[in-house]
């Protein structure tokens, strides 16, 4: 294993960046918007797979962390409205910082909990955070939510530059940066310590690894990613409301990283694609098969969840390591680097 880590990881990401760039010119606006959504989800799934897959901490609360990032972006962006394009950078940074802080608090509690108790704690976070918006109605505007004041794409890109393309650029800039930093982080000592703590806490302690510190930093890193993903969601939707971050979002995120392959960044990419593709495919299916309006309404929210569940079961039966392990299985004969 020679060469510089950052160069190697950049060599992976540059073609991806070029591909995304090309797609934003090739795809129709709605597909471009979906591509942008994949980018935003990717930030979250990448962070979640590091936490749950590599460190073994189950989080059912990442939807709430996304909400934290989204609301922080909305509030900061609205406070700075109309001062120029740079404000988006500031409010995104604010979203990441605030979510990281929230993640640190939850992480400190999480480091003391194991298994079902940790799941319970994060579940409580997922339920409580959206309801905060109705408690502090004057700030968060309850169920109505907030609209986000965003500037149009920079004029330098041309007056007719499609807004969806700009959104896709923003969200994939965030996603690729997240992947780059996480890939750097998990390939070295940090990632090894995460996995060591996951596998055997007593042995990890004796190997000189602080279990609590490792678990808290895993949560913090993961929360930062979720905050960025949430912020990008607010940018894409140009609004935030508690309804956009229900408990099912957290469950979807977790299912996505499991289907993609726990602990694998490639798996996080697969998961993010599924999070957009599966509900969309379900929609076009219900549209194609004509059902009565009452049945259609009932299927609306539940069918994607059911489809996700079925996909989860099928993938786990066929590829217990998730979709990302498909490549690994085929590469089996090559020795480890």
């Amino acid at each position, binding site marked *: 294993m020679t060469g*510089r*880590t*950052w160069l190697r*990881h950049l060599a992976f990401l540059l073609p991806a960046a070029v591909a995304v760039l090309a797609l934003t010119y090739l795809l129709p606006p709605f597909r471009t918007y979906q591509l942008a959504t994949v980018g935003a989800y990717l930030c979250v799934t990448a962070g979640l797979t590091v936490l749950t897959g590599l460190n073994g901490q189950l989080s059912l609360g990442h939807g709430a962390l996304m909400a934290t990032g989204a609301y922080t972006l909305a509030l900061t962006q609205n406070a700075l409205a109309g001062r120029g394009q740079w404000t988006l950078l500031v409010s995104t940074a604010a979203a990441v910082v605030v979510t990281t802080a929230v993640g640190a608090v939850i992480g400190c509690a999480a480091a003391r909990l194991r298994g079902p108790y940790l799941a319970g704690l994060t579940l409580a976070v997922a339920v409580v955070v959206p309801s905060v918006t109705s408690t502090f109605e004057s700030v968060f505007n309850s169920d109505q939510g907030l609209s986000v004041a965003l500037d149009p794409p920079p004029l330098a890109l041309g007056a007719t530059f499609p807004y969806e393309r700009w959104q896709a650029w923003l969200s994939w800039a965030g996603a690729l940066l997240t992947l*780059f*930093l996480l890939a*750097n*982080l998990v390939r*070295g*000592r*940090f990632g*090894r*310590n995460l*996995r*060591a703590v*996951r*596998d*055997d806490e*007593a*042995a*990890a*302690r*004796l*190997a*000189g*690894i*602080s*279990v609590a510190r490792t678990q808290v*930093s895993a949560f913090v890193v993961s929360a930062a990613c979720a905050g960025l993903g949430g912020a990008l969601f607010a940018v894409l939707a140009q609004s935030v409301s508690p309804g956009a971050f229900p408990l099912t979002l957290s469950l979807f995120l977790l299912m996505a990283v499991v289907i993609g392959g726990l602990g694998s960044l490639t798996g996080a990419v697969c998961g993010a694609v599924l999070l957009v593709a599966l509900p969309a495919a379900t929609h076009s299916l219900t549209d194609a098969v004509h059902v009565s309006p009452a049945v259609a309404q009932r299927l609306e929210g539940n069918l994607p969840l059911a489809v996700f569940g079925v996909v989860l079961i099928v993938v786990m039966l066929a590829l217990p390591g998730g979709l990302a392990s498909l490549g690994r299985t085929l590469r089996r004969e090559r*020795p*480890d680097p």
Partner: protein
Amino acid sequence: MPSSPDSAAPPGLALQNIGVRFGGLVALDDVSLHVPPGRVVGVIGPNGAGKTTLFNVVCGFVAPTAGTLTLDGRPLRPQPHRLTRLGIARTLQGVGQFAGLTVLENVQAGAGHHARTGFASALFGLSRADRDERRLRDEAHAALERCGVGHRAHLRPDALPYAERKRVALARALVSRPRLLLLDEPAGGLGADEIRELGALITGLDCAVLLVEHHMDLVMAVCQEILVLDFGRPVAFGTPGVIRADPVVAEAYLGAEVETP
């Protein structure tokens, strides 16, 4: 109890009048032991005699209810994850390996406190983080070679036979370059030849060793001093010759006849 630790206390690890109670159960009662630098000291006794509890006290997994610990004359308040920085390493009963890490990574995990770069360097993939990582890898390779399992570096531990997994566990302890190595039943589950090789390895170490072991041949061969525990109390202490001749020990633990190695 000595109140002037710096001048009076001996170099190496010293346990003075250590007691451990779990509720009404006395696990250790008034145990004192000194492990000088470079010496190999054994702890033997029947199951439940408190041998592993003694290790857990030294490692900080169990807080003693009485007595003091010193390391090189300084009071020792051990925390498990700080031990390698103090120059103490321990292997666990069984193998205690990270199943999701390769053999090499398992050993690298034990060398973490030799790293010179932190989170930020790793986050941005700076070349100094790479250099650091390469150094840890070289150290881990060297430790594996020393334990005779260098050729297994890229396998998962569960792909190895039991004896080799024990060697990997030893390599992970050695990679931290300990001054004191705590070995908890290193010969458990090994065959006669493997135990002989393990004995040679222990004798060749340049650090102090505290050895808990049931296999008498190994204990008698490698230890310079032996402490015998029974029901948490020290019943004998001395050289292998003294222990072998002690009638109390023979009755409590060794049985009638002791095979000489």
